């Protein structure tokens, strides 16, 4: 290096020991926090699991297929709750999913001026900020009275269908599902809107260039391209619906039976837990822990599937850039 011309000042210097330490400490700290969330999840599962072990040994698989919940006779089964959970969530998903995708289309395909579009998007997302108990109250005081008339009509005229073969009992599957559908709407709308916005503009341009109308472009190109993302949104919303507690505890009727009639009362796993914990004795708490484990397992599986679909969706999009 002796041949290099001498330099008066050099500004560059290696990082100091302190900078290296801060850098490492920061990296270490983020690792700790990141892993802490995973440890926390494992810990919660472990705690619920260990509290549920006595009930699991006692009732085994019969717990999942049994239809009676009687603390006095120490007989516990959650089949009506499992069915009720899936039934209300599926109905909510059909309604909320359709509405959510429709909202996402309107808010992503240039139907509105950008300012209004942005405003509407935020308002829809605000639906997620309304507390669950408020939804429950709204369900009791608005939804149930509103659906009573149509429900009576449906029962009278289409009562031969299993979905309408009882009278509206007040709280029940239908009001619970309707409120739940509004609750999952922001999830579906926000995530499927993201998927639609991620569809490259050049694809829409290609469709328009071929002489497609706006609807042909949306149905023929935008939705198919975003389909994986939309499907992922729906599955994640399903995961939310399954675990929703307060509004359902107020609206579903809390009857330990399951019927296909939309107007009959029913129950869900989450509202079973919410309603029974306060007065449960030692044995029933064990059974409730078992029910909690079943609910957690269902929700986790659905969420993992949803996340996997989202990952696949984003990798599919990669080829388009």
């Amino acid at each position, binding site marked *: 290096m002796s041949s290099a011309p001498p330099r008066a000042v050099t500004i560059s210097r290696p990082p100091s020991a302190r900078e290296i330490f801060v850098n490492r400490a920061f990296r270490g700290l983020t690792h700790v926090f990141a892993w802490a969330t995973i440890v926390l999840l494992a810990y919660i599962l472990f705690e619920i699991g260990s509290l549920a072990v006595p009930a699991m040994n006692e009732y085994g698989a019969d717990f999942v297929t049994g239809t009676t919940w009687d603390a006095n006779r120490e007989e516990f089964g959650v089949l009506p709750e499992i069915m009720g959970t899936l039934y209300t969530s599926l109905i909510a998903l059909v309604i909320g999913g359709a509405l959510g995708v429709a909202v996402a289309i309107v808010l992503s395909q240039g139907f509105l001026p950008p300012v209004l579009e942005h405003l509407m998007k935020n308002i829809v997302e605000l639906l997620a900020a309304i507390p669950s108990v408020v939804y429950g109250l709204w369900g009791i005081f608005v939804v149930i009275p509103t659906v009573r008339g149509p429900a009576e009509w449906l029962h009278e005229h289409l009562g031969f269908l299993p979905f309408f073969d009882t009278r509206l009992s007040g709280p029940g599957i239908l009001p619970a599902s309707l409120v739940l559908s509004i609750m999952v709407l922001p999830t579906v709308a926000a995530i499927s809107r993201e998927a639609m916005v991620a569809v490259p503009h*050049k694809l829409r341009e*290609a469709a*328009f*260039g*071929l*002489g497609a109308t706006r609807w*042909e472009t949306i149905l023929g190109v935008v939705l198919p391209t975003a389909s994986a993302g939309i499907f992922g949104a729906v599955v994640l919303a399903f995961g939310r619906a399954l675990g929703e507690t307060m509004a359902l505890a107020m609206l579903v009727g809390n009857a330990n039976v399951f019927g296909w009639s939309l107007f009959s009362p029913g129950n869900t796993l989450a509202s079973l837990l919410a309603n029974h914990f306060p007065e449960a004795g030692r044995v029933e708490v064990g059974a409730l822990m078992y029910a909690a484990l079943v609910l957690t397992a269902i929700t986790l599986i659905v969420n993992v599937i949803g996340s996997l679909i989202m990952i696949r969706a984003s990798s599919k999009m990669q*080829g*388009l850039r």
Partner: protein
Amino acid sequence: MVSATATATNGNGHENGVGDGVVIDCRIENLYYGDFHAVRDTHVPIRKGTITAFIGPSGCGKSTALRCVNRMNDLVRGFRFSGHVHFRGQDIYGRSIDPVAVRRSIGMVFQQPNPFAMSIYRNVAFGLRLNRFKGDVDEQVERALRGAALWDEVKDKLSASGLSLSGGQQQRLCIARAIATEPEVLLMDEPCSALDPIATRRIEELMLELKERFTIAIVTHNLQQAARVADWTGFMMVDTSRGGRTGYLVEFEETKKLFDEPAEDLTREYLQGEFS
């Protein structure tokens, strides 16, 4: 350098050339996006069975002018247009004309290859489905792919995703998609700018084959490309004199004449690479 405003847009003969064999007569008086005055005084007749090229520096409005021809600019918020585009004896900007119908008769190939995220077959059949094509779809898809010189490369994998192809193949797929419905005119907006030289050369050869069946208008920033393929060339320039960046047509001539003996000084300076 010659002041942009000093150069007249008329007086270079193209006004008289309108008439025989003109499929599209495009006369843009003024074109705005919102407050932005994008293009003015551009008159380009596009003749049947020829390739017409638009050349000029970046931002001179050549793509914008091309997109007037199939009303793609209508998709841009704030687009306003005065002038006319005559096609099949009608002004496509006429009140009773549906832009969607215009785009079905005038195909377009874009700067970036943009196949849909679906199979090669469905990409090509897309336009056929839009037009409720009742004939043999398989046959028409094959015809389009052969027309785009892609058939031999994809005939065994028509169900593979269009995105699995190379960039040059994707662009030929887009050409196949555009010609599948047998449009009368094919617009190409810098179709080779995302491609390597070999793929570019293939597309150019393809254009020369296709011009027998489809009248072609192309925007290119590649002067050699215009010289190689175009029969007629329009040179556009940017006018910054009034504070904006308004594009206008400097000269429209047969390609050979425009390159060999341009009527305007500005054209000659541009062709000699004195500015870009």
